[in-house]
């Protein structure tokens, strides 16, 4: 199992290639959407690159849960319901959702996922 730093370096390189950002911009606390400018199509690109870099399989919606965020079952008035948050937490144990929980508007989710979440996600996949 590679170290956390080795994983971070590979994640960084995937994000630099996928998003065209500078290496220096890819810090652990940088948010994927707000700071690095990732759009929804970029997440698909990132999935491709992480799968290749780490030899893992990433199912659709695992990294970016767009199906939950756009589901009428889990969203009311532009905010995620309690059931929606529970689903997200179960689906994304690697992500720190505490800030998002305080204001669970769907728009706000864009600024929730960080680079460190990506690293934790890969760690969880490699440990599985």
């Amino acid at each position, binding site marked *: 199992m590679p170290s956390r730093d080795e994983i971070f370096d590979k994640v960084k390189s995937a994000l630099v*290639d*996928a998003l*065209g950002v500078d290496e220096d911009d890819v810090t652990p606390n940088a948010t994927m959407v707000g700071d690095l400018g990732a759009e929804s*199509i*970029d997440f*698909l*690109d990132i999935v*491709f690159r992480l*799968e*290749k870099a780490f030899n893992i399989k990433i199912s*659709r919606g695992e990294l970016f849960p767009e199906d939950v965020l756009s589901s009428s079952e889990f969203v009311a008035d532009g905010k995620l319901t309690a059931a929606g948050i529970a689903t997200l937490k179960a689906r994304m144990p690697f992500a720190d959702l505490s800030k998002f929980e305080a204001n669970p508007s769907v728009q706000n989710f864009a600024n929730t996922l960080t680079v460190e979440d990506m690293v934790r996600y890969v760690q969880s996949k490699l440990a599985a």
Partner: protein
Amino acid sequence: MRWFWIDRFDEFVRGRRATAVKNVSLAEEHLHDHFPGVAIMPNSLIVEGMAQAAGLLVADAIDFNRRVVLAKVAAAEFHFDAVPGDTIRFQAEVLDLKPAGSLTRVTSTIGDRLQGEAELFFAHLEPGEGVPKLFEPEELLRWLDQMHIYDIGRDEAGQPLARPDW
């Protein structure tokens, strides 16, 4: 009218790679203004040619079941200008192919010189709400015939591609 930025395929190996040709001609109107007296094929249109070559390769590989759209030019670099009289060869290669999308690499060469290279990322959209229909089946088939895909195309085992009966 449609924009066609490749003239035909010379090689087409299902799901793997393809080579398409584009002859640049001063008869193309866009070259009259880009630029007057100094005609240069815009690299943005070369990207479109790359996308048509790689996009058809990918769309065929998934049996044309989804709408293949150019979602992202992940990287592109050009080394010199293409001008009237040039024959551009687009060589497309599938790097990764999944139900939801594909990553391809395409180069453009003129003679034996590398003119451009790009990584193109395609999204494969399920037909449905909000996804425009790109082609009528007979229109698509006409294009594929014009591109000679079923004349020169082969599957991975080297067998000729069967022409669909849409």
